[in-house]
Protein backbone atom coordinates (compact mmCIF):
# COMPACT_ATOMS: atom_id res chain seq x y z
CA UNK A 1 0.00 0.00 0.00
CA UNK A 2 1.29 3.45 -0.82
CA UNK A 3 2.06 5.76 2.13
CA UNK A 4 -0.62 8.14 0.91
CA UNK A 5 -3.33 5.59 1.56
CA UNK A 6 -1.87 4.14 4.75
CA UNK A 7 -3.53 6.73 7.00
CA UNK A 8 -7.05 6.10 5.75
CA UNK A 9 -6.42 2.48 4.93
CA UNK A 10 -7.84 1.05 8.13
CA UNK A 11 -11.27 0.08 6.95
CA UNK A 12 -13.06 -1.26 9.98
CA UNK A 13 -16.53 -2.20 11.04
CA UNK A 14 -17.57 1.41 11.60
CA UNK A 15 -16.91 2.39 8.00
CA UNK A 16 -19.33 -0.19 6.66
CA UNK A 17 -21.88 0.58 9.37
CA UNK A 18 -21.84 4.27 8.44
CA UNK A 19 -22.42 3.44 4.76
CA UNK A 20 -25.31 1.16 5.76
CA UNK A 21 -26.73 3.92 7.97
CA UNK A 22 -26.59 6.48 5.14
CA UNK A 23 -28.13 4.00 2.70
CA UNK A 24 -30.97 3.31 5.14
CA UNK A 25 -31.59 7.04 5.57
CA UNK A 26 -31.68 7.68 1.81
CA UNK A 27 -34.19 4.83 1.46
CA UNK A 28 -36.37 6.14 4.29
CA UNK A 29 -36.41 9.71 2.95
CA UNK A 30 -37.15 8.44 -0.57
CA UNK A 31 -40.05 6.40 0.74
CA UNK A 32 -41.53 9.52 2.34
CA UNK A 33 -40.80 11.96 -0.49
CA UNK A 34 -41.70 10.06 -3.65
CA UNK A 35 -45.29 9.47 -4.71
CA UNK A 36 -44.78 6.86 -7.42
CA UNK A 37 -45.52 3.53 -5.71
CA UNK A 38 -42.94 1.69 -7.85
CA UNK A 39 -40.17 4.01 -6.67
CA UNK A 40 -41.43 3.74 -3.10
CA UNK A 41 -40.90 -0.02 -3.43
CA UNK A 42 -37.37 0.54 -4.72
CA UNK A 43 -36.69 2.68 -1.63
CA UNK A 44 -37.88 -0.18 0.60
CA UNK A 45 -35.36 -2.39 -1.24
CA UNK A 46 -32.64 0.14 -0.43
CA UNK A 47 -33.52 -0.03 3.27
CA UNK A 48 -33.49 -3.85 3.23
CA UNK A 49 -30.09 -3.78 1.52
CA UNK A 50 -28.75 -1.48 4.23
CA UNK A 51 -29.85 -4.03 6.81
CA UNK A 52 -28.15 -6.83 4.84
CA UNK A 53 -24.93 -4.83 4.74
CA UNK A 54 -25.10 -4.44 8.51
CA UNK A 55 -25.61 -8.19 8.97
CA UNK A 56 -22.63 -9.02 6.76
CA UNK A 57 -20.48 -6.44 8.56
CA UNK A 58 -21.21 -7.97 11.96
CA UNK A 59 -20.69 -11.47 10.57
CA UNK A 60 -17.22 -10.36 9.52
CA UNK A 61 -16.53 -8.63 12.84
CA UNK A 62 -17.52 -11.72 14.84
CA UNK A 63 -16.25 -14.28 12.30
CA UNK A 64 -19.62 -16.01 12.47
CA UNK A 65 -21.38 -17.42 9.40
CA UNK A 66 -24.80 -17.06 11.05
CA UNK A 67 -24.76 -13.36 10.25
CA UNK A 68 -24.50 -14.22 6.56
CA UNK A 69 -27.17 -16.93 6.82
CA UNK A 70 -29.66 -14.35 8.15
CA UNK A 71 -29.17 -12.33 4.95
CA UNK A 72 -30.90 -15.11 3.00
CA UNK A 73 -34.04 -14.73 5.08
CA UNK A 74 -34.07 -10.98 4.46
CA UNK A 75 -33.63 -11.73 0.78
CA UNK A 76 -36.61 -14.09 0.72
CA UNK A 77 -38.77 -11.56 2.53
CA UNK A 78 -37.72 -8.90 0.00
CA UNK A 79 -38.54 -11.20 -2.92
CA UNK A 80 -41.96 -12.07 -1.48
CA UNK A 81 -42.64 -8.40 -0.80
CA UNK A 82 -41.78 -7.40 -4.36
CA UNK A 83 -43.88 -10.19 -5.88
CA UNK A 84 -46.99 -9.40 -3.84
CA UNK A 85 -46.46 -5.64 -3.95
CA UNK A 86 -46.09 -5.47 -7.71
CA UNK A 87 -49.18 -7.68 -8.10
CA UNK A 88 -51.11 -5.19 -5.95
CA UNK A 89 -49.78 -2.30 -8.06
CA UNK A 90 -50.91 -4.06 -11.25
CA UNK A 91 -54.36 -4.70 -9.71
CA UNK A 92 -54.68 -1.03 -8.65
CA UNK A 93 -53.51 0.19 -12.05
CA UNK A 94 -56.26 -1.84 -13.74
CA UNK A 95 -58.88 -0.04 -11.70
CA UNK A 96 -57.64 3.54 -11.75
CA UNK A 97 -54.95 3.97 -14.40
CA UNK A 98 -52.28 5.37 -12.15
CA UNK A 99 -49.57 4.36 -9.70
CA UNK A 100 -49.40 7.51 -7.60
CA UNK A 101 -49.85 6.81 -3.90
CA UNK A 102 -52.04 9.89 -3.36
CA UNK A 103 -54.65 8.57 -5.80
CA UNK A 104 -55.39 5.67 -3.50
CA UNK A 105 -56.59 7.34 -0.30
CA UNK A 106 -60.01 5.75 0.19
CA UNK A 107 -60.71 2.46 1.90
CA UNK A 108 -63.00 1.41 -0.92
CA UNK A 109 -62.69 0.52 -4.58
Amino acid at each position, binding site marked *: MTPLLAGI*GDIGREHYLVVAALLFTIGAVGLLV*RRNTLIMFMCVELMLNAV*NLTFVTFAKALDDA*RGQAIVFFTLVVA*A*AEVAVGLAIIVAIFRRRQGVTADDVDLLKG
Partner: protein
Amino acid sequence: MDAVIFYAFSALVLTGAIGVVVFRHPVYAALSLVTTMIAIAVLFLAQDADLVAIVQIVVYASAITVLFLFVIMLLGVDQRETGPDPRRFQRGAAYLLGAIIAAEVLLLAGREWAIGTAPGDAPLDDAQGGNVRAVAKVLFTDYIWAVQVVSVMLVIAVVGAVVLARRSRQIAATREREGVPA
Protein backbone atom coordinates in the same frame (compact mmCIF):
# COMPACT_ATOMS: atom_id res chain seq x y z
CA MET B 1 -6.21 -1.58 -1.74
CA ASP B 2 -8.97 -2.36 0.75
CA ALA B 3 -9.48 1.34 1.30
CA VAL B 4 -9.63 2.11 -2.42
CA ILE B 5 -12.26 -0.58 -3.01
CA PHE B 6 -14.25 0.50 0.02
CA TYR B 7 -14.34 4.20 -0.81
CA ALA B 8 -14.97 3.70 -4.54
CA PHE B 9 -17.85 1.30 -4.12
CA SER B 10 -19.35 3.07 -1.10
CA ALA B 11 -19.50 6.20 -3.24
CA LEU B 12 -21.19 4.14 -5.96
CA VAL B 13 -23.69 2.68 -3.45
CA LEU B 14 -24.69 6.10 -2.14
CA THR B 15 -24.75 7.76 -5.58
CA GLY B 16 -26.99 5.00 -6.90
CA ALA B 17 -29.29 5.28 -3.87
CA ILE B 18 -29.59 9.05 -4.31
CA GLY B 19 -30.31 8.41 -7.99
CA VAL B 20 -33.24 6.14 -7.08
CA VAL B 21 -34.77 8.93 -5.00
CA VAL B 22 -33.96 11.82 -7.34
CA PHE B 23 -34.69 10.50 -10.85
CA ARG B 24 -38.17 11.45 -12.01
CA HIS B 25 -38.23 8.70 -14.61
CA PRO B 26 -38.96 5.24 -13.05
CA VAL B 27 -36.74 3.41 -15.59
CA TYR B 28 -33.72 5.55 -14.63
CA ALA B 29 -34.51 4.90 -10.96
CA ALA B 30 -34.56 1.13 -11.60
CA LEU B 31 -31.21 1.26 -13.43
CA SER B 32 -29.81 3.35 -10.58
CA LEU B 33 -31.01 0.61 -8.23
CA VAL B 34 -28.97 -1.96 -10.21
CA THR B 35 -25.84 0.18 -9.69
CA THR B 36 -26.43 0.22 -5.95
CA MET B 37 -27.08 -3.52 -5.76
CA ILE B 38 -23.92 -4.48 -7.65
CA ALA B 39 -21.78 -2.07 -5.62
CA ILE B 40 -23.20 -3.59 -2.43
CA ALA B 41 -22.27 -7.04 -3.77
CA VAL B 42 -18.67 -5.80 -4.06
CA LEU B 43 -18.80 -4.56 -0.45
CA PHE B 44 -20.02 -8.06 0.52
CA LEU B 45 -17.08 -9.63 -1.32
CA ALA B 46 -14.70 -7.28 0.49
CA GLN B 47 -16.04 -8.69 3.76
CA ASP B 48 -15.55 -12.39 2.94
CA ALA B 49 -19.21 -12.95 2.10
CA ASP B 50 -18.69 -14.77 -1.19
CA LEU B 51 -21.97 -16.66 -1.36
CA VAL B 52 -24.06 -13.68 -0.25
CA ALA B 53 -22.38 -11.47 -2.86
CA ILE B 54 -23.23 -13.83 -5.72
CA VAL B 55 -26.79 -14.30 -4.49
CA GLN B 56 -27.09 -10.52 -4.22
CA ILE B 57 -26.25 -10.18 -7.91
CA VAL B 58 -28.46 -13.07 -9.04
CA VAL B 59 -31.51 -12.21 -6.94
CA TYR B 60 -31.40 -8.47 -6.31
CA ALA B 61 -29.52 -7.00 -9.22
CA SER B 62 -31.11 -9.34 -11.75
CA ALA B 63 -34.40 -10.95 -10.74
CA ILE B 64 -35.97 -8.24 -8.60
CA THR B 65 -34.86 -5.36 -10.83
CA VAL B 66 -36.07 -7.13 -13.97
CA LEU B 67 -39.42 -7.60 -12.22
CA PHE B 68 -39.51 -3.84 -11.52
CA LEU B 69 -38.61 -2.94 -15.11
CA PHE B 70 -41.14 -5.46 -16.39
CA VAL B 71 -43.97 -3.89 -14.39
CA ILE B 72 -42.88 -0.36 -15.38
CA MET B 73 -42.97 -1.33 -19.06
CA LEU B 74 -46.15 -3.40 -18.72
CA LEU B 75 -48.12 -0.60 -17.13
CA GLY B 76 -46.60 2.07 -19.34
CA VAL B 77 -45.96 4.30 -16.35
CA ASP B 78 -42.52 5.29 -17.60
CA GLN B 79 -43.27 8.96 -17.24
CA ARG B 80 -42.80 11.64 -14.64
CA GLU B 81 -45.01 12.06 -11.61
CA THR B 82 -47.93 14.20 -12.66
CA GLY B 83 -49.63 17.10 -10.99
CA PRO B 84 -48.61 19.05 -7.91
CA ASP B 85 -48.12 17.30 -4.61
CA PRO B 86 -51.48 17.51 -2.82
CA ARG B 87 -49.81 17.36 0.58
CA ARG B 88 -47.01 19.90 0.43
CA PHE B 89 -46.07 19.83 4.11
CA GLN B 90 -45.13 16.15 3.73
CA ARG B 91 -41.93 16.98 1.91
CA GLY B 92 -40.54 19.23 4.64
CA ALA B 93 -41.61 16.74 7.30
CA ALA B 94 -39.90 13.96 5.35
CA TYR B 95 -36.57 15.82 5.21
CA LEU B 96 -36.81 16.63 8.92
CA LEU B 97 -37.54 12.99 9.77
CA GLY B 98 -34.74 11.92 7.44
CA ALA B 99 -32.27 14.14 9.29
CA ILE B 100 -33.41 12.65 12.61
CA ILE B 101 -33.11 9.08 11.29
CA ALA B 102 -29.64 9.84 9.89
CA ALA B 103 -28.48 11.27 13.22
CA GLU B 104 -29.82 8.25 15.09
CA VAL B 105 -28.35 5.53 12.90
CA LEU B 106 -25.01 7.33 12.53
CA LEU B 107 -24.82 7.61 16.31
CA LEU B 108 -25.53 3.88 16.57
CA ALA B 109 -23.00 3.02 13.84
CA GLY B 110 -20.25 5.04 15.48
CA ARG B 111 -20.67 3.53 18.91
CA GLU B 112 -18.47 0.93 20.44
CA TRP B 113 -20.62 -2.18 20.45
CA ALA B 114 -20.75 -4.56 23.36
CA ILE B 115 -20.98 -7.53 21.04
CA GLY B 116 -18.82 -9.89 23.04
CA THR B 117 -17.42 -12.83 21.18
CA ALA B 118 -19.07 -15.39 18.92
CA PRO B 119 -19.33 -19.01 20.07
CA GLY B 120 -16.69 -19.71 17.45
CA ASP B 121 -18.35 -22.85 16.15
CA ALA B 122 -19.32 -21.32 12.81
CA PRO B 123 -16.35 -19.44 11.35
CA LEU B 124 -16.77 -17.56 8.06
CA ASP B 125 -14.37 -19.81 6.19
CA ASP B 126 -14.77 -23.54 6.38
CA ALA B 127 -11.42 -25.27 6.04
CA GLN B 128 -12.75 -27.68 3.45
CA GLY B 129 -15.26 -25.74 1.40
CA GLY B 130 -14.73 -22.07 2.09
CA ASN B 131 -17.49 -19.57 2.70
CA VAL B 132 -20.18 -21.40 0.70
CA ARG B 133 -19.85 -24.51 2.84
CA ALA B 134 -19.76 -22.49 6.06
CA VAL B 135 -23.01 -20.65 5.28
CA ALA B 136 -24.73 -23.78 3.96
CA LYS B 137 -23.77 -25.68 7.09
CA VAL B 138 -25.41 -23.06 9.31
CA LEU B 139 -28.49 -22.77 7.09
CA PHE B 140 -29.14 -26.51 7.00
CA THR B 141 -28.39 -27.28 10.64
CA ASP B 142 -29.12 -24.39 13.01
CA TYR B 143 -31.69 -22.69 10.80
CA ILE B 144 -33.31 -25.67 9.10
CA TRP B 145 -36.79 -24.91 10.47
CA ALA B 146 -36.50 -21.26 9.54
CA VAL B 147 -35.55 -22.32 6.00
CA GLN B 148 -38.64 -24.55 5.81
CA VAL B 149 -40.95 -21.83 7.09
CA VAL B 150 -39.48 -19.24 4.75
CA SER B 151 -39.88 -21.53 1.73
CA VAL B 152 -43.56 -22.06 2.60
CA MET B 153 -43.91 -18.28 2.87
CA LEU B 154 -42.35 -17.83 -0.55
CA VAL B 155 -44.82 -20.29 -2.08
CA ILE B 156 -47.72 -18.46 -0.42
CA ALA B 157 -46.40 -15.13 -1.75
CA VAL B 158 -46.13 -16.45 -5.31
CA VAL B 159 -49.64 -17.93 -5.21
CA GLY B 160 -50.91 -14.66 -3.73
CA ALA B 161 -49.23 -12.65 -6.49
CA VAL B 162 -50.86 -14.83 -9.16
CA VAL B 163 -54.29 -14.51 -7.52
CA LEU B 164 -53.94 -10.72 -7.22
CA ALA B 165 -52.65 -10.10 -10.71
CA ARG B 166 -55.13 -12.36 -12.47
CA ARG B 167 -57.92 -10.45 -14.09
CA SER B 168 -60.98 -11.39 -12.12
CA ARG B 169 -63.90 -12.55 -14.28
CA GLN B 170 -66.39 -10.75 -12.09
CA ILE B 171 -64.71 -7.37 -12.47
CA ALA B 172 -64.38 -7.86 -16.21
CA ALA B 173 -68.10 -8.70 -16.46
CA THR B 174 -69.07 -5.64 -14.41
CA ARG B 175 -66.94 -3.39 -16.59
CA GLU B 176 -68.47 -4.80 -19.74
CA ARG B 177 -71.94 -4.14 -18.41
CA GLU B 178 -71.06 -0.54 -17.54
CA GLY B 179 -69.41 0.00 -20.88
CA VAL B 180 -65.98 0.74 -19.39
CA PRO B 181 -63.15 -0.45 -21.62
CA ALA B 182 -61.34 -3.22 -19.81
